[in-house]
Each structure stands twice: as C-alpha cells, then as structure tokens.
C-alpha cells in the first residue's frame, strides 16, 4: 500500500542492498535490553559449555582469552528497525570453543545461549558453526562496554540482534529448539532479517 505523500530517504544502491526489508541505516550504536545493565567483573566472569543439563567445559576470563581469537567485520540488524554496517568485532569463534572442549562438531542440533542477567535465546547449532558466530570480547578494538554486553556477548550477525545475547555466561546444546526470553514473548523463533522474521508467525 503506497503511503500518500511519503517519498522516504532512499540510500545509494550499494548501501540499500545491504539493508534487509524494513530496516534503516544507523551510524550510532543504539542500546536495547529488557532490564538494568549488569556490571560483571572479569574476576567473576566464566563461560560454561553444556550438553543438555551437563557442563562439559568451563573457562575463566584468562583461560577464555587464551583461546584463539578471530576478527570479523559484519553488518548487524536489530529487530527495532536499525541496521549498522561494517561493525568490527574480535572474539572466540564457536568452532574454536567446541574444539577446545574436544568436540569435532556440535553435539546436538540446537542451542540456548544463557546470560548473567537470566536472559536466554535459542539458536540452531548450524547457525553458530562454520565461522558464523563468536563470543565477542572486543568491539572497535576496545573491550566491550557493559551496555553493549561486556565483558562478552554472543555475536550471530546474520540473525536479528536479540539473538546475539549480551552478558553471555554460557552455551547449552539442546536436542530440541527451546524458545528463549524474547521468543517466549512474541518474537520469532529463528529471526532471519532477510526474511523479516520479526515476530511469531512472520
């Protein structure tokens, strides 16, 4: 439906083709979260890998930072309609976390990422491996600030950004796709921005 009198601010084609449907370009880095920002000291930080209810590996901050680190520049897309291009991250690929835990592949088809504030979000295992996702420790060359999820956040840039859980504390492999915090509150179970999977039923 054409909106009477609306022309819009159209972007050059090379930018426009990188914006999924309904998204707008932002130059700053908006902050969104469901509750207060937790301030987690690196001395209290740890990352736990679980298969079902069972922990199979755990790293403290120093141990985790000693894992192989990778830099990635990615476009990110928030379900609240902003997209940000060429964001530079550094962290540990999920592939390298699995390898450090002695796993040659994902042990189950699905995962839940868990956070220090009780947040959780579900991501299929296939969307985390093959270089597609990392636990990000640095943004623009500096430690990740608390309001952007520091000390560490999940980064799954090809899905809407609520999947990139802030203040991540662990990753749990699950047999079934179990809805996380926003997925239980009307947001899409998978969240592909290019298919505009914002809400349940999209």
């Amino acid at each position: 439906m054409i909106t009477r009198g609306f022309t819009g601010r159209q972007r050059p084609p090379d930018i426009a083709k990188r914006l999924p449907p309904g998204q707008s370009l932002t130059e700053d880095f908006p902050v969104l979260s469901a509750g207060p920002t937790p301030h987690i000291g690196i001395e209290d930080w740890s990352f736990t890998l679980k298969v079902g209810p069972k922990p199979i590996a755990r790293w403290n901050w120093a141990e985790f930072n000693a894992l192989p680190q990778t830099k990635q520049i990615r476009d990110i897309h928030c379900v609240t309609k902003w997209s940000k291009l060429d964001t530079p991250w550094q962290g540990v690929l999920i592939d390298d976390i699995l390898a450090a835990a002695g796993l040659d592949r994902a042990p189950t088809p699905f995962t839940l990422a868990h956070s220090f504030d009780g947040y959780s979000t579900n991501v299929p295992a296939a969307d985390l491996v093959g270089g597609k996702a990392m636990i990000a420790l640095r943004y623009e060359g500096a430690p990740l600030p608390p309001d952007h999820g520091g000390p560490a956040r999940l980064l799954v840039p090809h899905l809407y950004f609520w999947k990139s859980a802030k203040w991540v504390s662990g990753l749990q492999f699950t047999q079934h796709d179990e809805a996380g915090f926003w997925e239980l509150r009307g947001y899409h179970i998978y969240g592909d921005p290019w298919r505009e999977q914002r809400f349940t039923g999209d």
Partner: protein
Amino acid sequence: MTDAGTTNLAASRALHWQQATITAIVPQTPRVKSFFFAPSHPFSFRAGQHVDVRLTAPDGYSTERSYSIASAPEMKDSIELAIERLDDGEVSPFFHEVAVVGDEIELRGPIGGHFVWDLADGGPLLLLGGGSGVVPLMSMIRHRAAQGSTIPVLLFYSARSWDEVIFRDELMALDDRQDGFELVFALTRERARRERDYERRLDTAVLTEVLPRLPQAPKHVFVCGSNAFVEAAADGAIATGIPRGIIRTERYGG
C-alpha cells in the same frame, strides 16, 4: 531446516499488517504530536505494548518504525501514538508535516510481552520516564485510571522544560485526584514549577527522596527513555535497594 521449531509456536497468532485511518492529530508539545489511528481490524493490547508502522513510497521503497501506544487498552476504537519529531528523521517528519486526518497508514500489533502491566500485576508501581519515554508509562497510568484503581503509582518524569512535558495537564489532573497516583516532574534545562518537582537529573539521591511517596516499596519498576536516562535511572533505583529483578527497561533512540 534451521527453523524447525517455528510451526508449533507460530500457529496461534501472526501479526498481520492492516490499514489504519488517522482520525485525529493533537499537538502535545512543540516537538510531539499525538496521532489517533482507527485500525481496520481493531485489536486488544496490554499497557506498555507498541505497534509497528510501515510507510511505502510510490517506487516501492518502504520503511518501518516502532511506536509505543499511549492510549489505555480500554479505548477500543482507536489507538494513540505520540510521535516526537526528530530533525534528522525519515518517518517522524512525515507524520508531523505531511500526514493529515483521513490518511491511511499500515500498522501491525500489538508487539512486546515484557514491558507490560495491568491491574492484575498489582503494585505499588514505580514509573521512571525520560522525555518521550513517558508514552508507554502513560498507557499504564490511563489503564489504572480507566479501571478506577487505587493501586499506588509514582511517576517520576524527566523532561527538558515545562513546555516539553507530554500529557502535562492530564497528568496533573490525575495527580489532583489524590487516589494513590503521585506525580513528580524533573526539568533538566529549566527551573522547577511546583514545590515537589526537581530541576536536576535523576540519580540515587533524588530517588531516595521521592520513593517515600509510595506507601510501600514498589513491586514493579518500569523505566523508559534514552539509553543515558535508563542507565542512570535503573542504576539509581538499584542503589536505593530496589531489587534488580523487578526493574524492566525500554530504551528509545533505537
């Protein structure tokens, strides 16, 4: 299949785009106007929820924005969105300068299942709003008033100036009822107008002073505004001893 779980959750209720007619436009402040939309398929919602709005240009280009609902769920025929004009915006200048009563706009909703409150959730309620962040809080306040509830509610509302306080007269009229609704304004660029109001930003000291206006400690806290406001308000609330787990936040500017 990467989204094998979709079907069982999706089956119940998809959010369809629908046409809504602008039935009224009411200036609220120099930068905020209320737009009343009559959806072609009216829907019920919970106070605090938002809708998505989609504008489409003749060449097919379209863009979307999310706006919180300001009206009470009890208002059935139309929903009110209070839209702030952002000078560098793409959508808000359209609404402020182009849209007129009778125009049809695409929207869908309601959206959001976390930043919501209704009477059954109980109180007391502490509402901390910065600027246009008052909008979803207003829906909660109007819901309470429409139900004749006396659940204690304290709204602490920070704005730049007296003239930029959205819904000012309505809020003051509700305050005058003395039915358990308490109103405190904080102006950040102007002198306070009323004895109880502040002319400074929200922090722990201010919150410690205003909290006794509630008869008991709050059961739920809702914070909405810019990221800077939400960070200060939520951290300030935690410093007064309010449990982190009862604080829900919504940040504008995204």
